[in-house]
């Protein structure tokens, strides 16, 4: 018969066909407008092509038209879950360029706020990661406890998510009189709640099956892809800038850098769970010792950086966030480059997900804790 191929030829043609699906840009588990192009063989992922840029707003370009204090407000919109750390990076960069030293009080408050942001971010990550794996209840537990931190932020900074609390030379305003009391209350409460998180998800057999040995990333790969933050530390890549290049008040506190060497999804999970404990330790060491003093230096009305290139990096909740400012001596930067941790972390996903199943890809991308607006800038 015409048109009917011999059976062996049919098989070879089927083998050549790729089953390609678009995961995203609108998909529940890409946590934003990220698009994965998947090639599948049955359930097994052959390769992943991440396509980003769906929420590109041109923030780097926009910074060339505005002044340095104004840049702060744009960095909130990058990684909105570690808005405070992004602010801090820009502030530190400008302060270093001007060679000014902020008061001790500012350093302490910045560190406490950064750790609170990290806690809130990890709580949200835990909530969403559980949901990625199909454990829907975690979502509400995580969001419930995050609410306390957002209330603290709102009280002091006036804003819950995009705080813009830092400014070159210090902080926008002083902390609320109740700040210390509230933070201590939160920590007391959260120390009780964190074991609940472990009971609900960490000890679960299905959860272990779903995460152990999944999405392996070797230390060498982590370094060559530039995977930083908790995702990198899950592979044994010691990349905690708070430890290796202390800024603000991190040199005054005693804390551990969490390292796991397995490099699988479960290791990345454990890093974040342990980091929540460490963040609480850091806050507890600082909260009672905030020195008296000014909350900001008196800065000139118009900040002009001397001509040159300046780079500052901080440890955000997702990894190394860098700000590279090139100044030509004007009140606007000549060029600004943000090193977004998510972009580098995402680049590793193809090598991590190959050969695993679709459900594993969801777990892997969840364990990288991607924030898409940061990725697309």
């Amino acid at each position, binding site marked *: 018969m015409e048109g009917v191929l011999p059976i062996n030829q049919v098989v070879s043609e089927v083998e050549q066909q790729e089953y390609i699906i678009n995961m995203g840009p609108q998909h529940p588990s890409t946590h934003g407008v990220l698009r994965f192009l998947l090639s599948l063989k049955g*359930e097994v992922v052959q390769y992943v092509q991440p396509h980003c840029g769906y929420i590109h707003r041109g923030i780097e370009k926009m910074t060339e038209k505005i002044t340095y204090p104004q840049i702060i407000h744009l960095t909130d919109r990058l990684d909105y879950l570690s808005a405070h750390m992004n602010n801090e990076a820009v502030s530190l960069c400008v302060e270093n360029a001007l060679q000014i030293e902020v008061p001790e009080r500012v350093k302490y408050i910045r560190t406490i706020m950064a750790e609170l942001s990290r806690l809130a971010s990890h709580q949200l990550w835990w909530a969403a990661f559980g949901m990625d794996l199909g454990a829907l209840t975690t979502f509400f537990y995580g969001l419930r406890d995050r609410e306390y931190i957002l209330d603290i932020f709102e009280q002091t900074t006036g804003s819950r998510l995009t705080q813009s609390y830092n400014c070159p030379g210090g902080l926008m305003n002083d902390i609320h009189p109740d700040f210390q009391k509230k933070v201590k209350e939160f920590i007391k409460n959260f120390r009780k709640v964190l074991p609940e998180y472990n009971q609900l998800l960490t000890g679960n057999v299905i959860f272990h*099956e779903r995460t152990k040995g999944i999405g392996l990333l070797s230390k060498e790969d982590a370094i060559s892809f530039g995977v930083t933050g908790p995702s990198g530390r899950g592979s044994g890549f010691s990349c905690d800038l708070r430890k290796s290049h202390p800024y603000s008040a991190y040199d005054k506190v005693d804390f551990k850098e969490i390292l796991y060497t397995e490099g699988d999804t479960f290791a990345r999970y454990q890093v974040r769970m342990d980091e929540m404990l460490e963040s609480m330790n850091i806050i507890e060491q600082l909260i009672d010792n905030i020195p008296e003093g000014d909350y900001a230096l008196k800065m000139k009305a118009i900040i002009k950086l001397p001509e040159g290139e300046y780079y500052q990096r901080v440890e955000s909740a997702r990894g190394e966030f860098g700000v590279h400012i090139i100044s030509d001596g004007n009140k606007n930067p000549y060029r600004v480059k943000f090193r977004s941790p998510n972009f580098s972390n995402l680049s590793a996903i193809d090598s991590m997900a190959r050969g695993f199943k679709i*459900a594993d890809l969801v777990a892997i991308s969840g364990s990288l804790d991607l924030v898409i607006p940061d990725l697309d800038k």
Partner: protein
Amino acid sequence: MPFDIYDLSTFTHWIDTSLRAGMSPFWAVFTEFVLVGVVFLAFYAVVGLFLVYAERRICAFMQCRLGPNRVGPGGIFQTIADLIKLLFKELIYIKNADKILFNIAPFIVIIASFLALAAIPFGKGLQAMDFNIGIFYVVAVSSIGVIGILLAGWSSNSKYSLIGALRSGAQIISYELSVGLSLIVIVILAGTMQLSEIVEMQRDGWFIFTGHLPAVIAFIIFMIASTAEINRGPFDLAEAESELTAGFHTEYSGIKFAFFFLAEYMNMFIVASIAATVFWGGWMPLHIGSWEGFNHAMDFIPPFIWYLGKTAVIIYLIMLFKWTFPRLRIDQLLTLEWKYLLPVNLFNVLLMAFIVLKGWHF
């Protein structure tokens, strides 16, 4: 017997005889069919709506929130409002979809769950069809649903739907073995497949108590396997929303989606009914040995309440699973069935056969 005060067979017999007195046998049977159909449709709708509401409240309480609480007292009319919304939603037709199969699929799913209701004994004499192969009928009929799911996934012309449907096919066909085998354990113990007789045999003690270890094992396996068979969490791979958005019903909208949704809840109800009937004595009140006073007091609770209460407890258990556990992966799901549940089940059947042969059961 004291609990025969609630025997409804006299009532149903009276309907039957008075109908047959008034008209020819054909029309009498026809009228009975219509009556039973109408009653079941109403029951189906009420149970479906109530289960959706119950699920939303229960999961809300597990997740530290309130759940629906605005429409009516305690939000009791929320699902009705949702139903009205779904009725008025646009039915979207997919380009290049196989129209006939696409439209038929939700009906197959819902009819399969509807058919299974017929064999379930709700109370003494309150059973539409008392087959002598009742268990076999229920298992057979409820497995028709997978055809609807496969068709829905195939005809939607969507890659996500297709993956969901194929997952569902693999899952349901695998777990049907365990459901069947765990029920066979009880069939061996009871010596009959007739559901009314199985209930009657549990007069002096439910099978889960009288059947030694094998009945307990069979009950646990039945709970796991039936949760998987009705595509509910942690086995909801067919519609895993974090992977496949909604699986096989991704492309359905409006009332057709509602059909799938309703069928899922009704399947849960049917599975819980079977578990209650086969393992927990169905409508049979709780009787403990020679405690005459206690047994007598229990008899005064109507059988229908017993049946609904047991079913509700099992439904609550199934809901707890869903809102506690993460989802399994497809290969882990099949490993669980073929490497663990099935061998345990086969051994369990042998064990039960041995116990019955030796007459060691109560």
